[in-house]
């Protein structure tokens, strides 16, 4: 049984005076225990909103969240806010992009790590602080005893992100959701943090949902990758399949448009024409069709369903990139 089973999750932003915006449109995916799953897409594709909806962190007012988020067979969307709070931090940890705005600027780091342990495991302040020291040590923060008294502004970006990871993993959650955890960091620091995440996840058997726009990060980390476009999953595949033989024209275009360090530089980059647009001229067809080179009549006229592929993935495309047939 999967640890997390997201079924047909939709989020509609409904603000008075404006047209409703469907940010997430029927997203389904599963995460097995210990598995690392990637959600990849460009800005506005709904990847962050998906993670917030899973954690119940979207404001209730003005947002309509439908579908199911089954964690251990409990539908998180049906829980009352005060009950959900018992799950968050204990069973599901979360790391956000900007560590400075996720940490409380007026509380010392030690208290912020300790409060998770106090809330969920009923530790005393003293015991929790002792444990916090060990946690900071485990995420590679130098001199953890003294850092307990430090405030977030006294730490560098990389150290802050390490502290946030320590908080997220304090109660040994079974699932960790990381929303662009390295985007605000420099490459050498990014490499440190990714290596750390990988080690921690491997050691503890925590499942990881990695949300990122960076295909390189996904390539090294995730078992299965979901590619999102305009609020929908357009392709899901095991990472080796996805990168070697992308089937959806969007995935294919994305992979080709990134300059790569390890291949000879050609004259021009492949470019996907146009940009993500809110006003798709047809109500049901494929949202990527206006930018797609492989567009056919079926893309525009009717709903393009997400269909399973023989390789264990899924694909939402009426005219996918053909597989190379071995001669």
């Amino acid at each position: 049984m999967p640890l997390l089973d997201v079924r047909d999750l939709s989020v509609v932003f409904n603000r008075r005076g404006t047209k409703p915006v469907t940010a997430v449109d029927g997203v389904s995916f599963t995460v097995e225990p210990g598995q690392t799953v990637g959600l990849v897409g460009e800005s506005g594709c709904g990847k962050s909103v998906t993670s917030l909806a899973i954690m119940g962190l979207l404001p209730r007012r003005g947002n309509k969240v439908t579908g199911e988020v089954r964690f251990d067979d409990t539908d998180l969307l049906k829980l009352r806010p005060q009950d959900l709070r018992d799950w968050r931090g204990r069973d599901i940890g979360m790391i956000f992009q900007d560590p400075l705005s996720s940490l409380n600027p007026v509380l010392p780091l030690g208290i912020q790590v300790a409060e998770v342990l106090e809330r969920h495991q009923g530790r005393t302040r003293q015991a929790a602080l002792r444990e916090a020291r060990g946690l900071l040590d485990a995420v590679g923060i130098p001199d953890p005893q003294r850092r307990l008294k430090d405030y977030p502004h006294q730490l560098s970006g990389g150290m802050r992100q390490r502290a946030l990871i320590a908080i997220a993993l304090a109660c040994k959650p079974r699932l960790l959701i990381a929303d662009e955890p390295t985007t605000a960091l420099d490459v050498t620091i990014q490499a440190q943090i990714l290596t750390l995440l990988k080690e921690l996840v491997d050691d503890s058997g925590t499942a990881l949902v990695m949300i990122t726009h960076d295909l390189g990060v996904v390539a090294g980390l995730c078992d299965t990758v979901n590619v999102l476009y305009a609020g929908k999953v357009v392709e899901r595949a095991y990472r080796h399949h996805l990168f070697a033989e992308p089937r959806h024209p969007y995935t294919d275009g994305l992979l080709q448009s990134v300059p790569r360090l390890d291949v000879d530089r050609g004259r021009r980059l492949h470019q996907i024409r146009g940009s993500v647009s809110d006003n798709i001229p047809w109500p049901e067809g494929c949202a990527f069709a206006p930018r797609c080179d492989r567009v056919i009549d079926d893309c525009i006229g009717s709903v393009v369903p997400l269909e399973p592929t023989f390789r264990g993935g899924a694909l939402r495309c009426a005219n996918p990139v053909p597989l190379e047939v071995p001669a």
Partner: protein
Amino acid sequence: MTDTLVSLDNLKVHFPIKSGLLFDRTVGHVYAVDGVSLSIARGQTYGLVGESGCGKSTLGRGLLRLVEPTAGGITFDGTDVRALSGERLRQFRRRMQMVFQDPMSSLDPRQSVESLLVEGLKAHGLQADASARLRSTLDSVGLPVSALNKYPHEFSGGQRQRIGIARALVLGPELIVADEPVSALDVSIQAQVVNLLDDLQESLGLTYLVIAHDLAVIRHISDTIGVMYLGALVEEAGADQLYDRPLHPYTRALLSAVPIPDPQVEDQRERMLLAGDLPSPANPPSGCRFRTRCPWSQERCASSRPELRVFDASGQRVACHYAEQILSGELRPHEVHAELVRPDSDSDVAGELIPTQPDLPTP
């Protein structure tokens, strides 16, 4: 011999740190750019890479005198730019323009595109044939003429960056300094802007100084690449040469840190992880600035600062005492202890350290 358009000679930009209630005492300096010499050939692209805080943006601004350099020389096409002042400097600026990272905050939201573009022309007394110039400029960056009457918020991110480029181009400059021109854009849009910069260079014979943190993008667009660390160049080489044979330990670390979108490559790669963070530019380490994080550092690195020297006939330049020994494998990497770096204070650098696993490829 290639024709040099711009050269910098030991350029320094230091920012004073002021303190005190009544008197602004200068208590120290941030050594943002600390002695950079480089030259950019006409019609070529010079890429400057480095992590945040290494001084790459300040270098670009210093070159255009948008911030006043503390010392050193800037020569643009035979003219000593630092000797210019007042009206002559203002007129000279027409020849060197800048494209900024975030097109939303660098374009005035209350000005239409036409007014944004005409502003520069007016300042330089070129409004005579303004409308023809605007049309051809918009055309060259791939925007329709109807864009003239619109405002920045009506465009997407990629289109806004095109407006930013058009604003730089409209004056017919020779040099464009582009500071992180694509880092605010999505991957699919990045490729469009990178290709546009490429096309413009070809058709207009522009010279670029491109500043970016993304090594893959820099490698794609540059002819020559300079790697900066803590205010100074640590290595400079042709784009392919740098990636084929990085000499400086920092360049090696940077290259190995960039994730590659290919699982097969990622699985087999050996990563060289740097310990710790970038030290404060207000209190740089003695000797070689990289020595606190360098797995090859020796005693000599603490006492003498390595000069950027020509390594061999290829023209590759490197600032490392031991580049030869590291390349040949004579010098073995050792363990590095992460020093805690405080983002805002230059004192209290903790002495007690944690060991990190030396996970280094043999050279």
